[in-house]
Each structure stands twice: as structure tokens, then as C-alpha cells.
């Protein structure tokens, strides 16, 4: 999706707010963060589904609302999509209808912290899959983006880079985001010359690296 979230290279956003140097400024931000982390288990949803829901926030709200409010809005969307709440409940905070609790057990504190500390499993067995590209090979990023959630920014579309490493066989964000995961794909680190992407304004030797799943690429 060519959405407002795809910000790389956009101009007009002014100076970096370097002094906004904290993680949380308000207690509600902590609660919004924690709600996303816990509801990911009981609803459930994964990080790509949450990102996709954030990207679907109207552009003007994407720009003006607080980062953690957007996390909460995305969680609300995922709850609505799952049929676990309705709009009126979200407004009031009061329960109107019960949910099948057995199917959506809350995550206990200890389980959550242990799992958070352990991390997720994001790679899959290659089971005979063969990578399409080799290290040092020139690749071109496909010129057209996907309509849904995708992790290839517009600013590299159609441009030629060089594979610097094959990272392995990873769950594919485009599929995960719509609950069709893991549909694993090889993922590569690709290096681009800054001038390829930005023209002569960029400095000659500077480079950019992006991690790109195989379906985003073609031989150059």
C-alpha cells in the first residue's frame, strides 16, 4: 500500500525533533503499549497485522495523532475485525455483549514476560526451497507495490541494488499481515548506492541497505 506511512524520502517534514528524547511522556502511553502487547495473545494478532492496522489510519490522523494513540486505534480496529467489541463499547468502555472467553484467554503476566524475553520464531525450515538470488548478484526491486501491507518502500521501487547477504527463510510480512502466514520466503540484505536512489544530490560513496523478501525482487 502506497500509504502515508511509507515516508522514506518524503520532503517537507521539517527538522528532527531531537529533544523529544523520551519513550513515554504520559501514563496512558504505557497502558496503550501494554494493551497491544497483551491483546496480541488473546485476540490474537501478530506484529504485521498490528502494523497493517496502523497503516490504515486516515493519513491526516496518521500525521497528527500520538504514536501510542495510533497503537490503540490499531488495536481497536483488530478487536472490531475479530468481532470482540463494537463501536459503542469502545466509546463507553462498558461491556454490551459477552465473548467466548475460552477462545480468547488473557495472557498471564509471567507467560507474557517470559515469551517477550524469549522472542518469537520468525524463520522456517527451508525444506528444499532454493533461493532465487545469490550474494553479489544485481537485483531490481519490482516497480509496483502490493495493494495490501508490504515492506518494500516506494523509494527503492524499480531501482537496482546488489545482494549482500541471504538472511534466511523468513515468515513473509505481506502474508502475515492478512493472517495467511507464515508463507516463508528468502529474505536478502540489498545494498543500493545513494545516487541510484536520490540522484546527484547524494554523496558519491554513500549507500543504503534494506532487507527485502524475495517476491519484491527480480534479476537485473
Amino acid at each position: 500500500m502506497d500509504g502515508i506511512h511509507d515516508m522514506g524520502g518524503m520532503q517537507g517534514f521539517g527538522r528532527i525533533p531531537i529533544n523529544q528524547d523520551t519513550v513515554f511522556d504520559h501514563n496512558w502511553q504505557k497502558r496503550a503499549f501494554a494493551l497491544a502487547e497483551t491483546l496480541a495473545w488473546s485476540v490474537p494478532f501478530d506484529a504485521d497485522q498490528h502494523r497493517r492496522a496502523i497503516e490504515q489510519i486516515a493519513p491526516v490522523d496518521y500525521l497528527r495523532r500520538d504514536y501510542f494513540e495510533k497503537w490503540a486505534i490499531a488495536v481497536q480496529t483488530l478487536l472490531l475485525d475479530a468481532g470482540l467489541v463494537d463501536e459503542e463499547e469502545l466509546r463507553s468502555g462498558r461491556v454490551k455483549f459477552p465473548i467466548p472467553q475460552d477462545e480468547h484467554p488473557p495472557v498471564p503476566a509471567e507467560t507474557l514476560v517470559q515469551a517477550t524475553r524469549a522472542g518469537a520464531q520468525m524463520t522456517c525450515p527451508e525444506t528444499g526451497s532454493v533461493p532465487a538470488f545469490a550474494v553479489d548478484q544485481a537485483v531490481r526491486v519490482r516497480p509496483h507495490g502490493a495493494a495490501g501491507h508490504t515492506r518494500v518502500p516506494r523509494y527503492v521501487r524499480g531501482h537496482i541494488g546488489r545482494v549482500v547477504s541471504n538472511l534466511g527463510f523468513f515468515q513473509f510480512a505481506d502474508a502475515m499481515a492478512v493472517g495467511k502466514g507464515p508463507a516463508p520466503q528468502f529474505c536478502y540484505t540489498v545494498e543500493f548506492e545513494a545516487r541510484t536512489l536520490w540522484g546527484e544530490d547524494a554523496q558519491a560513496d554513500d549507500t543504503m541497505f534494506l532487507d527485502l523478501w524475495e517476491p519484491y525482487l527480480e534479476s537485473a
Partner: protein
Amino acid sequence: MPHDDHDPLEQGAALRVRALEELMVAKGLVDPAALDAIVEYYERDVGPRNGAAVVAKAWTDPEYKGWLLRDGTAAIASLGFTGFQGEHMRVVENTPDVHNVIVCTLCSCYPWPVLGLPPTWYKSAAYRSRVVREPRVVLEEFGLTLPEETRVQVWDSTAEIRYLVLPQRPSDWQELSAEDLAERVTRNGMIGTAAV
């Protein structure tokens, strides 16, 4: 972004989240103890001090440094730093010739186990949009002027790898204890928006 306390936008956000929390607890989808526990975990156990320990060790232990650059995930895990948003780590080394800086243009991907959650500026539209296009101008805004002959490498965290910058070792490193060295390491230094 921080809002002043009378900002209606911030008040609306606070109300939204309070209603959501109440509803989720009432619906049985959330155990309030889990909310408290995860906030506490990120406030107490996770943060830039973890990354600083990794960096300080790499500065003083060449073998560890080699391992860290070869297999960041394992070398970082060996110090006990693992978890969400850090399952696959790559450490990129700053040298007099190369300066690395990390970003997530599409959202806010960041190596949580070693740096904690990202600061607001890292998630800002200005940083995300500009650092890939004009990294040197952005670094100047952070007060970091790079020699023209230093190559800038920008790493956009677009998939599941999370990045950590290994800053250049201070010249007086041999006079410092491991703790003092770790004190020198700043969060921005490990993002690449500051020298150390």
C-alpha cells in the same frame, strides 16, 4: 510527540486508552497484572544499558567483537539480551572510514532487547523521511559533522533484522573500566546519530 496537559488531542487519546483498558479487563481479554508486568519489564530490564554492555565488551574483547560482527544474534544473546524485536540482530561497525545509522522508514522497528523502546524522535516523520535521503544533513542537526571522506551507510529496518551500531572505541579506552566504558556509550551512539 509530547503534548501539553491541556491539549485536547492528548486528552482524547488518554480517554480512548482508558476506555479500552476498562473494556478489555471487563471483557476478560486482559489480565491487569500482565499490563503492569510488561510495562515494568520494559522500564526496568530493557534499555540502552544493555546495548552499552555489548559495546563495552566488544571494545575490550577482540574475540567477542569478531563474534558480534559475525553473528550479532548469538553474541548478544550470550550476554542475556534476547526477546521481541531482537530475534535477529546485526551489528554494524563504525570506523574512521564508515559511519552507520539506522532507521525504520515504514514504522518504528528498533532493537528492543538492547536499546529498549525507541525515543519519540526516532518515530518522527522528519527522521523517517529524511535520514535515508539526506543522512549528512540529519546528522548535522544532531550535532554530528562527518568528514566528507567518511562513507555513510543507512540501514532501513524493513524486515525482521534489527540493527545496532557499534560506535568507534574512545581513544582513552585503556584507561577506563568496563563500567566506565559502558557509561560512555549513548543510545544515540548505538543508533548512529551521535559519535561516542
